[in-house]
């Protein structure tokens, strides 16, 4: 149990207006409004499918979900019109396949998670090993000239980094996962993912919005004092930083990272206060010991800090904080429908007090996310009206601008126009 008194020490002056003019730091991105078309166009969406989602590494979860041989998860990838099974083989290694029978194409696994010795199709009973090899065909002699050794499940590349499982629909990707993540790996090196991943909470919803509209809403703090006035504004803004300016940010070739401010003078509500007293919480920790955090998280080492974000192209983000982290995944279905999945992770709770603290933290997070959800659908509802063609963005929205640029560099929609 921690004793927490507001110390009021360690708060820095307001972020200087001149040192967070992020557009000046990245002049190659320009300052022009960005087009709305990529958020509404079916043609753009089709190009994203072919040129992004089929061509890069995609996060599909964490290794804690499949610790033992035979454990599997099933990941729907509607953007690529497929479903992927990730399984731990008898050899202890991960294998991944399209979830599709080699006979007449039935989906092999129908649930989301489980454990098995082999995969048997529920249509005619073809059976496959955990390594995807076809092992049994009922009434096999009825088939003419079947090449059984060529009829395994169709493989998908799979690899892990820091316990995060990534797949690549190309079974022989030209770029390794390590190389793909090289820009963000140093920043997260040493963050205690294994310890903090012991307790997993996850919510899932389908929203009527383009996947980039949804993701963009988490890439800027500009909306926070308005949209999250009732929930998060007190902890993430203050008189000295009223508009939730970032403490630091770095834009990379494909990925990016940010550090967010936390108000050290924030007075928690009565229940939040008890949650802090008995455990940990994502909301600003006034007793934070930065020594617990690797150098790449909160790299400016400011004490008035709350949470970092690492944006991993195209649709995955990790928000490391002190003693807890969360992730978002945005899985496109169509140009205006998206599966949004949020995970929040905590260490193993040792007692009821810690469980209560985690429960409060996750419920508060959920209610904050509820404030975001509505805006996304209202935006999508009118974006296609044609009333506007572009969106102006300010310094604090530079991650939205960067995200647009990275997607467009892959898609090339405007390249020939």
């Amino acid at each position, binding site marked *: 149990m921690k004793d927490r008194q507001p110390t009021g020490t360690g708060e820095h002056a307001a972020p200087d207006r001149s040192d967070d003019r992020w557009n000046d730091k990245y002049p190659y991105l320009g300052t022009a409004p960005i087009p709305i078309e990529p958020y509404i166009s079916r043609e753009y969406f089709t190009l994203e499918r072919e040129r992004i989602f089929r061509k890069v590494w995609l996060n599909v979860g964490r290794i804690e979900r499949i610790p033992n041989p035979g454990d599997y998860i099933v990941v729907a990838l509607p953007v690529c019109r497929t479903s992927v099974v990730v399984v731990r083989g008898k050899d202890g290694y991960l294998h991944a396949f399209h979830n599709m029978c080699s006979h007449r194409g039935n989906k092999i696994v129908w649930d989301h998670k489980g454990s098995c010795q082999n995969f048997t199709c529920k249509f005619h009973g073809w059976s496959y090993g955990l390594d995807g090899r076809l092992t049994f065909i009922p009434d096999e002699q009825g088939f003419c000239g079947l090449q059984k050794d060529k009829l395994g499940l169709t493989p998908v590349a799979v690899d892990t980094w820091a316990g995060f499982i990534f797949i690549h629909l190309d079974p022989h990707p030209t770029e390794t996962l390590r190389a793909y993540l090289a820009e963000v790996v140093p920043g997260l090196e040493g963050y205690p993912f294994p310890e903090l991943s012991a307790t997993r909470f996850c919510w899932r919803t389908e929203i009527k919005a383009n996947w980039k509209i949804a993701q963009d809403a988490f890439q800027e703090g500009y909306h926070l004092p308005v949209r999250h006035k009732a929930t998060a504004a007190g902890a993430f803004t203050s008189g000295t930083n009223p508009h939730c300016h970032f403490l630091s940010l770095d834009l990379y070739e494909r990925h990016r990272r940010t550090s967010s401010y936390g108000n050290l003078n924030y007075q928690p509500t009565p229940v939040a206060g008890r949650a802090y007293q008995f455990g940990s919480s994502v909301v600003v920790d006034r007793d934070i010991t930065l020594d617990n955090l690797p150098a790449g998280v909160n790299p400016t080492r400011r004490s008035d800090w709350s949470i970092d974000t690492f944006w991993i192209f195209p649709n995955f983000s990790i928000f490391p904080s002190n003693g807890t982290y969360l992730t978002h995944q945005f899985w496109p279905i169509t140009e205006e429908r998206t599966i949004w999945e949020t995970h929040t992770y905590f260490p193993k709770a040792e007692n009821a007090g810690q469980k209560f603290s985690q*429960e409060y933290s996750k419920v*508060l997070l959920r*209610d904050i996310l509820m404030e975001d959800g509505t805006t996304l659908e209202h935006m999508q509802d009118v974006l296609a009206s044609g009333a506007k063609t572009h969106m102006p963005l300010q310094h604090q929205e530079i991650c939205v601008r960067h995200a647009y640029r990275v997607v467009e560099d892959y898609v090339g929609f405007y390249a020939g126009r």
Partner: protein
Amino acid sequence: MTESGWPAAFRTLQPFLGWALATEAERTQKRQTSEMADIQAFYNAMLSHLEDILVYLNQFPLEHMPPHARQLMDMTFSLAEIAPAVELFGQPREDDTFDPFRFVPQHQ
């Protein structure tokens, strides 16, 4: 202690046993379908004992919680569930926010 093991100090909480719900989905359902007056009454009753409840519960290993302690712990989770309603919104569901039943917990 009463026969059920329920500590006498928390006897005033027994009328609120309807909040001893095991999953987030059930607790959300209860919050979203309750009158604010009932939510506030539960909040008031729980908050005044919260520190003592958590100290009391911390003596039990999580894997071997007696049934009454499990109920009390689930009630603290319900308090966490309704805390934003009382402390931040003044109503079960904030105006102009996402349908809570569409944001589906994949955990228990």
